[in-house]
């Protein structure tokens, strides 16, 4: 499939040139021309007022994945553990995986490395039909080689159609090695996963260009279809105490790693930051002005029982440690309430917090982009608003 410009219809208006996310349209002799950087995403097709841009040779027949990939059926989730306990993102992946498996009428498999049987049983209650468990202590600590080798063996044996993993430091590090070896596609940081009704392919939606735009990605000609998902993006499924499933203990005694973790160091900052888990986050940005502003935010956080978040600007200024950073280069969060105080709302910040249930924005600039995503917007000075809010909330809590 490729996209071309019908030179007889093109008027040279240049409308299409800027629409291309890949910079693949250039003007040649007063007509638009699509160069080799085209990804055939077809974004430019509806943009052309003349209808001069068309898709050709659709003859690259919609690959008949139904028969070609008949062997590849199940959905497989890589369930991550930390210190032997299943990480919350795993339950979210099981929620997403269960939905896809039900849609496909297939089984939901889970792989758990470095945890015990009790944790594996939890995965069943969260929706897995079968868990491949490897309790060998070699998996307690994360090494790319051992994790990749173990997951590869299970995938090669079970031939899942879809493989999901968390977009965590662990998943983002070793899953690409697995995809490279399997010669298949991997889509990072998906925010939505659906099954295409016609082809049965996995439709993977993810942000690109710093969250400025969303891309819908397919892996039509290779299996498995692999995707990573950020923590707190997918909803957990239903927890069923009585649910039963199969737990298969896998041996894997002979796996070796070239890298070696010699030490694991925990760094917990003064307010225990667990932004991923927090129900309420009170975040500050450049507008917080410094230590003084963050002191007010901490008081509000204490009053509402929340934790402190920050925009990149505040972290770069050194007012708050990096571990509090929310956004593209920080953490993605999804709390019930997100207070954004003195944060203008650069897209890089928005992509990390815009799925919060309720967003309360306080900013002096009425045109700040944060107000576009805010549930409640207050145009005003956070040095005035925040202490007032803290006092009112304390008052209310004192009454109850």
């Amino acid at each position, binding site marked *: 499939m490729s996209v071309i410009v019908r030179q007889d219809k093109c008027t040279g208006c240049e409308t299409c040139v*800027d*629409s*291309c*996310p*890949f*910079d693949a349209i250039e003007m040649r002799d007063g007509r638009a021309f699509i*160069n*080799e950087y*085209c*990804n055939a*995403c*077809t*974004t430019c097709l509806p943009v052309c007022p003349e209808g001069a841009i068309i898709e050709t040779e659709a003859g690259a027949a919609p690959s008949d994945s139904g028969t070609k990939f008949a062997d590849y059926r199940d959905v497989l989730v890589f369930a991550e553990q930390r210190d032997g306990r299943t990480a919350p993102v795993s339950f979210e992946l099981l929620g997403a995986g269960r939905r896809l498996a039900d849609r496909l009428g297939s089984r939901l498999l889970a792989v758990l490395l470095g945890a015990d049987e009790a944790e594996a049983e939890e995965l069943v209650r969260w929706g897995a039909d079968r868990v491949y468990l490897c309790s060998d202590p070699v998996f307690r600590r*994360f090494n*790319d080689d051992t994790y990749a080798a173990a997951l590869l063996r299970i995938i090669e044996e079970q031939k899942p159609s879809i493989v999901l993993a968390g977009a*965590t*430091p662990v998943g*983002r590090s070793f899953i*690409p*090695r697995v*995809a*490279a070896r399997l*010669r298949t*596609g*991997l889509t*990072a*940081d998906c925010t939505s996963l659906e099954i295409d009704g016609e082809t049965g392919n996995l*439709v993977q939606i993810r942000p*690109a*260009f*710093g*969250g*400025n*735009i*969303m*891309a*819908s*990605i397919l*892996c*039509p000609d290779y299996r498995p279809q692999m995707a990573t998902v950020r923590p707190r993006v997918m909803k957990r499924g239903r927890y069923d105490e009585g649910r039963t499933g199969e737990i298969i203990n896998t041996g894997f005694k002979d796996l070796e790693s*070239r*890298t*070696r973790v*010699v030490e*694991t*160091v925990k*760094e917990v900052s003064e307010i225990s930051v667990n932004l991923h888990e927090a129900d309420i986050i009170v975040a500050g940005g450049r507008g917080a002005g410094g230590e003084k502003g963050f002191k007010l935010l901490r008081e509000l956080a204490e009053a509402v029982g929340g934790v402190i978040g920050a925009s990149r600007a505040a972290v770069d200024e050194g007012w708050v440690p990096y571990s509090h950073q929310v956004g*593209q280069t920080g953490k993605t969060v999804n709390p019930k309430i997100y207070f954004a105080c003195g944060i203008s709302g*650069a*897209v*890089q910040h928005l992509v990390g917090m815009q799925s919060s249930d*309720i967003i309360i924005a306080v900013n002096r600039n009425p045109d700040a982009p944060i*107000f*576009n995503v*805010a*549930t*409640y917007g207050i145009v005003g000075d956070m040095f005035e*608003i925040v202490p007032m*809010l803290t006092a009112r*909330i304390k008052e209310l809590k004192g009454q109850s």
Partner: protein
Amino acid sequence: MNIIVCIKQVPDTAEIKINPETNTLMREGVPSIINPFDLHALEAAVRIKEDLGARVTALTMGPPQAENSLREAVSMGADDAVLLSDRAFAGSDTWATSYALAGAIRKLGADIVFCGKQAIDGDTAQVGPETAEFLGIPHVSYVRKIEWIRDNTIRVQRLMDEGYDVVESPLPVLLTVVKELNQPRMPSLKGKMAARKARIRIMGKADIDADEDSLGLKGSPTKVKSIFAPETKAGRMMLGGGPEEQVDTLIKELRKIRCL
């Protein structure tokens, strides 16, 4: 010691806006920059060169214009610059990009390959680990500190969610780095002169012994089906009045939906 630093020329995503009428990217006037994470990768390589002695090669895959980013890399201390450029590479996803990069790195030879943890236009963080897999060498992601290099071994700190791991790896190794690793230097005057005179070596598909079917759009397992603008949240409410009234309304609203 030979060190290769993989860099990518990217549009400055902070400058990109969406055209509200057509829901498409407005790229006009958006400057091209070296991916910010890659500057930290380059700085790490140059510091190793200064401490232990090494030859640093900056490598990028991209269109001919990407030469600019290579010259910038030379101005910051890279000794050599290689542009992997061929029409056959166009449309590569992370799999095909890593495949081609690995082909070039194999030809050039490296004891350490540095990459930024991710590029700001795609944000996948996949090309580093995938390239290591194609090269058949170990990798460590999210390196925030290099503790030492000796006896053909490197010890680094890997940033994790709740702290860091201290990891040892034999060489050759591929490392992807985070911003905490260092502060990239500004180009020196001498560096700028070197950049102007630098000879950029161009490699194409014939130079990397590549399997034609594994290159470019054809070699890419993932396909971009469509591109669209992100949804904006509806139901927003601006709270009017003076500060006290605003706080009052907010408290009422939050109580109404049982959030307080």
